[in-house]
């Protein structure tokens, strides 16, 4: 089998695998639903996810260890992931192939030449890793203050080396000493300046451009809901994800840019490709030319996917190992070998030290700049209710890669991508929107945390969620708390019985309870007692339509008899009002004023019981802006949001 056929087979396999994982990420009991399918495997193989969370948190979570395999293979083989595995890359390659169908060789060769702009992806990578490493850098900077002896020891050892080199009269010795001294002074000064500041922080933003999370997010949130119908039936109710315009626009822009330059995203944007470029620069095997036989025909550049110029000095970090040059060379010059290319190689990515430092510094400082808004502190947005098991906000932002797996798997479609509600760092992270979906956050469900590939949402157990078993002392997990808006609530504001919220509250005993209140009904004039025969009462005054007042919720009472219990109206007919029993005091007189009362059950929320599941908000009949709404107040994950003593 030709190597290109093998490569295509691999690409098709992983592309279909990706689509299959997207499809089966549905909660259910069918074999094609989430029944142990390793739906996160491709995310775990993506080493940028592992590296990003490692930098941000100092740990490599569970399955992310798979990324190590990719890294090892890349170091040995080069960017095989891009050309052989990456489903997003496969999509670009296929679209580029279709879009440039029938183009002539000169156009293709021109389109596939190396461009300076291809270094942008390295700057993006450095920027994103810089943003993720903020916390680590803060801790490094703090060393001279916190463990001055260690810092001094490091500096002294380095200086000794420098002085030793100076003694040996090497030219670089002097530079050594001065630069080490400069770094040491800078270190101390920086540590003095930033000491006590909590702003230098880590924020994982690789997911914005990392192709695997990007592709998952795009397919899960913007493509599957559109094709979910009779043929591909994934959910009973249509799925909605507010704010997906931007996600879709970025996805389609990336796809359509293949019309301009094939594999535009891979060559110019992809930070994962950049990481592979860096890792694979010293790959053992690499694509290159043999010593002789090259006629400079240029055929190898014609279908080059990476834009790495195999016809000339090949740029190894750009090579995506599509192997097209091997197949296209009619002179047998191109090969994938241990020997370096006879025409020469550029092994290092095309990015200078000063660019590297500049973008690293930009990434490191961008996060503190964003944190100045205070969204992780006092300016936290209470409308951002995170899924159950979410880490405390700062740690959450160090892990969430915005892949949208939680939004895909949520059985009630209540998890949605955040816009700017959680600050610029929180874009496309999950938040709950109880106005949408088929129900609130079902309190017996723990799907999102168990699917989250980075444990931004912890994989909690049902017992932990419900506060049972070993979690009884701590009680159930709260994601927020419901507040009754008394200005919009039917019973509170409009004297209409309702309490749908109380009915649907799923915790036992219910977090929503009611207090009964009899309120006088607004009528056009006074009701006066005319007479009373048995349970039947006649009156003078405005007409009382039976379909309004004989519903079982309306009562009458007589003014001037304190302590009288209101009596329910059973029926209203031409003969007067039929009451449930014969209540009126014997000395009730004609012309006594009758008060018509409505019996209201007024809803209250018990903060000690409410878990913030939002079923009440979802079911509230005031459908626009709900009369009961959940905010993140009292959520378990943030101590500072605690409400009760």
């Amino acid at each position: 089998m030709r190597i290109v056929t093998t490569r295509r087979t691999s690409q098709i396999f992983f592309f279909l695998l990706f689509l299959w994982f997207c499809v089966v990420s549905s909660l259910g009991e069918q074999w094609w639903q989430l029944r142990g399918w390793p739906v996160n495997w491709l995310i775990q193989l993506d080493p940028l996810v592992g590296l990003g969370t490692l930098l941000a948190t100092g740990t490599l979570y569970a399955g992310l260890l798979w990324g190590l395999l990719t890294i090892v293979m890349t170091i040995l083989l080069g960017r095989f992931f891009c050309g052989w595995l990456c489903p997003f890359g496969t999509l670009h390659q296929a679209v580029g192939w279709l879009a440039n169908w029938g183009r002539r060789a000169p156009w293709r060769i021109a389109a596939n030449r190396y461009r300076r702009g291809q270094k942008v992806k390295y700057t993006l990578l450095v920027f994103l890793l810089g943003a993720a490493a903020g916390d680590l850098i803060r801790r490094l900077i703090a060393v001279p203050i916190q463990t001055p002896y260690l810092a001094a020891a490091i500096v002294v050892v380095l200086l000794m080396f420098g002085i030793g080199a100076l003694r040996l009269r090497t030219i670089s010795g002097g530079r050594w000493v001065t630069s080490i001294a400069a770094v040491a002074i800078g270190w101390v000064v920086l540590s003095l300046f930033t000491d006590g500041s909590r702003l230098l922080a880590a924020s994982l933003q690789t997911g914005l451009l990392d192709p695997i999370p990007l592709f998952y997010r795009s397919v899960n949130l913007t493509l599957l809901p559109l094709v979910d119908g009779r043929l591909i039936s994934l959910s009973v109710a249509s799925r909605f994800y507010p704010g997906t315009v931007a996600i879709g626009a970025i996805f389609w822009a990336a796809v359509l840019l293949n019309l301009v330059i094939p594999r535009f995203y891979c060559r110019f944007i992809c930070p994962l490709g950049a990481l592979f470029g860096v890792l694979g620069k010293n790959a053992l095997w690499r694509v290159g030319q043999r010593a002789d036989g090259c006629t400079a025909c240029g055929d190898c550049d014609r279908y080059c996917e990476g834009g790495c110029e195999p016809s000339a000095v090949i740029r190894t970090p750009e090579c995506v190992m599509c192997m097209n040059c091997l197949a296209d060379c009619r002179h047998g010059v191109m090969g994938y070998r241990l020997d370096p290319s006879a025409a020469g190689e550029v092994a290092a990515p095309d990015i200078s030290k000063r660019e590297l430092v500049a973008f690293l510094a930009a990434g490191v400082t961008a996060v503190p700049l964003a944190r100045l808004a205070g969204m992780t502190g006092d300016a936290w947005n209470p409308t951002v209710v995170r899924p159950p098991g979410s880490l405390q906000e700062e740690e959450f932002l160090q892990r969430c890669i915005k892949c949208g797996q939680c939004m895909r798997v949520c059985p009630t479609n209540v998890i949605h991508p955040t816009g700017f509600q959680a600050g610029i760092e929180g874009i496309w992270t999950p938040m709950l929107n109880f106005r949408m979906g088929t129900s609130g956050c079902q309190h017996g469900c723990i799907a999102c945390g168990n699917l989250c590939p980075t444990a931004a949402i912890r994989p909690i157990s049902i017992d932990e969620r419900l506060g049972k078993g070993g979690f009884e002392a701590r009680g159930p997990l709260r994601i927020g708390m419901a507040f009754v808006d008394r200005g919009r609530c039917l019973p509170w504001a409009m004297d209409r019985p309702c309490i749908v919220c109380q009915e649907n509250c799923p915790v036992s005993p219910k977090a929503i309870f009611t207090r009964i209140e009899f309120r006088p009904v607004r009528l056009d004039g006074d009701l006066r007692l005319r007479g009373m025969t048995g349970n039947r009462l006649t009156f003078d005054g405005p007409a009382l339509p039976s379909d309004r007042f004989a519903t079982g919720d309306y009562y009458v009472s007589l003014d001037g008899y304190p302590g009288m219990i209101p009596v329910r109206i059973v029926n209203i007919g031409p003969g007067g009002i039929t009451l449930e029993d014969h209540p009126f005091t014997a000395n009730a007189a004609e012309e006594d004023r009758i008060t018509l009362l409505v019996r209201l059950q007024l809803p209250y929320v018990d903060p000690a019981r409410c878990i913030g599941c939002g079923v009440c908000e979802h079911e509230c009949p005031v459908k626009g802006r709900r009369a009961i709404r959940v905010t993140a107040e009292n959520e378990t994950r943030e101590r500072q949001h605690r409400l009760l003593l």
Partner: protein
Amino acid sequence: MTEQPIDRREFLTRCTQAGLSVAAAGALGIGFYDGKAPPALSETTETVQIPDFSIAGMSGKICIARGTSQGMDRAGTVRQAFDALGGMKAFVKPGERVLLKVNAAFASPPALGATSHPDLVAAVVRLCLDAGASRVIVTDNPINDPASCFALTGIDAAARLAGAEVVIPRESLFQRFSVSGGRLIRDWPVLYAPLARVDRIIGMAPVKDHHRSGASMTLKNWYGLLGGRRNIFHQDIHTIIQELAMMIKPTVVVLDGTQSMMSNGPTGGSLSDLKPTGTLIVSTDPVAADTVGATLLGRTAADLPFIAKAESIGAGTADYRSLYLKEIQAS
């Protein structure tokens, strides 16, 4: 540069093209002309009817089966209760299609008693099939996520294993419907598609506390056939239950008071909300069934205004002792 004069052929071609384009544009414009503004709300033209599913000769029959101890066997008890009223064959004729309207309102496990028990659903499905039913459909429009509700309550698996078809509601299954003589159910989406496909309907509900209406039993259970923003009907809960009784005339109802949800209804959520009450009622009169069910909750018909309201429109009688009453001891 010399100017090229237009030749006759080109002049004629261009005139024809221009003429056709003008004609096409004019035809499109005039063809789609509409002098009136669109109406405020598009009127629904379809009016569907829901047939009367009751059997004339079977009206006014009720069987109250009481268990000897806790741990009553629902499947055996419901069979004995039906047998006391002439067997399932008296209700379902061979070849008929039967709809079981269960209560699958909440995504909670069967042990919490907030929904129809899967054992009971499976037993009634089997009774129908044994009586010769050609098809048994199980449905409900739950409050929580429909797919989760059917899965977690165990109803989906139990019903399918017993040989029934489970219909999980989708938007396309609803049709706008008006109850004749009704005030609330006017032009309202109703889970119509399964209703249209059956000859008989059996209502199945557990006995549950319900803060707003007093109790949720067989009459309140028809709420699960409504779609749309049905929650606004809670403003007038007793009247909506009355209209649901006007909408559905069931073949028979099964009220499960094996255990009753005494508090925290209708969701429950804790075993302590339940109490073994050892009673199962099969009745062709849903009002009578609910009247008996109310006693299990320690309430009376007078505490539940919807009972009198349902009675007043002829849906049944609260005086269940006046009916053909069988009281049996389940063994």
